């Protein structure tokens, strides 16, 4: 069902946990749908120096969270904004179609954390102008 890469990230998720005094925190999803992702970012000079996550969700949700943290760690905000759900899924060697929404959730969790950072620091991030972290990626 899941690729080896997914199973690896599910079994040994990278960057699990939380960051005290994080610069940005994003939480997306809702427990009714069975997935919640919470991302913590440490940002210094526009670079993501540390990232942690906590996820309530299925195997794919945990693996995509883990992969997403790897993909943004050490990157600039601009680079992080380019980490799309498609990219996360690809890096994991693909996801079953019923699980693609999990990768969307990962993308959104990062964006939500960045939005939180921007708000706290009174920065305007052009790419997040229309982003609503409470929008439900499940479309149901």
């Amino acid at each position, binding site marked *: 069902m899941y690729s080896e890469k997914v199973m690896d990230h599910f079994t040994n998720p990278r960057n699990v946990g939380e960051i005290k005094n994080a610069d940005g925190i994003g939480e997306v999803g809702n*427990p009714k749908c*069975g997935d919640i*992702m919470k991302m913590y970012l440490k940002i210094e000079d526009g670079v993501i120096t540390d990232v942690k996550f906590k*996820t309530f969700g299925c195997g794919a949700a945990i693996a995509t969270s883990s992969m997403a943290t790897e993909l943004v760690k050490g990157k600039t905000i601009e680079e992080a904004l380019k980490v799309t759900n498609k990219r996360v899924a690809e890096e994991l060697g693909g996801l079953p179609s019923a699980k693609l929404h999990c990768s969307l959730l990962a993308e959104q969790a990062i964006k939500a954390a960045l939005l939180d950072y921007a708000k706290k620091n009174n920065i305007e991030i052009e790419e997040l102008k229309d982003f609503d972290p409470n929008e439900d990626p499940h479309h149901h």
Partner: protein
Amino acid sequence: MATKVYMDYAATTPVKKEVLDSMIPYYTEKYGNPSSVYSLGRESRKTIDESREKIANILGANPKEIYFTSGGSEADNWAIKAVAMANKDKGNHIITSKIEHHAVLHTCEYLEKHGFEVTYLDVDEYGMVDLEQLKKSITDKTILISIMFANNEIGTIQPIKEIGQIAREKGVYFHTDAVQAVGNVKIDVNELNIDMMSMSAHKIYGPKGIGALYIKKGVKIDPHIHGGAQERKRRAGTENVAGIVGFAKAMELAYENLEEHISKLTKLRDKLINDVKNKIDYVRLNGHPEKRLPGNASFCIEFIEGEALLLNLDMAGIAASSGSACTSGSLDPSHVLMAIGLPHEIAHGSLRLTLGDFTTEKDVDYVVEKLVEIVDRLRQMSPLYEKVKGV
């Protein structure tokens, strides 16, 4: 990882050695078509007759009331669709419950698209139907009540005799999906007022792809598969002789040892339930505390999601199941967990452990040990647990 502990007997069971041994000759030397007149064919016919008789005797039925099918789903479909078609001049109303197997529910939904009306009875927090609601739901147009004997997810056993009584008093047919109950409960179809009953061999250490529908004499029902004269012209197709033999053998074994089976499983199940409750907090038992299948332990483990749990159990060599949404690829948790009133977020953490004849106390201990570890690990990464614990 290879399966070390199988705790999903409600999903399916291995075929017992005696069962397989009884089947093999019907693949090899005794391969005659039961419809053929020569000795090889007559031998197959005789074997089918004997198998039918064995099963009928166990259930207190007449052999002529047992019709073999390809399994429980086919039996459910047949009973419901073909009673509907045969009695539509009498009425177009069917009563069932919200916690039926999909083979019943989706069949009812199909009939709704074709002019039938279906009442889906509620159940209480334990998964029990309300007999008063049932009585009130019956109208002049009601032709069929279909209520499952025992639920596959939460194990709750319904008051079948009482339901049958109500149906009989109102002159309405009563079908019960007994796929999970057969082999776990003593069943006398007459005593329990049952008109039709679905069964499946692979839940009781028989082969997959064979089952039966009990149809009480006199029930007005259309044939299911048209063609040859098999199954008294009601279900055509060359008989799955080996499957039928295996099914009968499995029934025999199940009912020879019923009491022992029940008391052994009940003991192991109760140990499992108690250990889980004692060692893990924020856990609830789903289903009825007493009126439940002897091998069924169904839990909701809060703050974690069922699929992640199952995958971790699988990696520890434990086969289990969940009514979680993610398992099925849909987004909503099982209709059964919804019907007993669980909030979505809790239903997502459901875990079904079902025990069977090969389960040992050591298995139970191993599962509890691993479960404690896995739940702990998953809760550590759950943002929901964090909130509760106030971390």
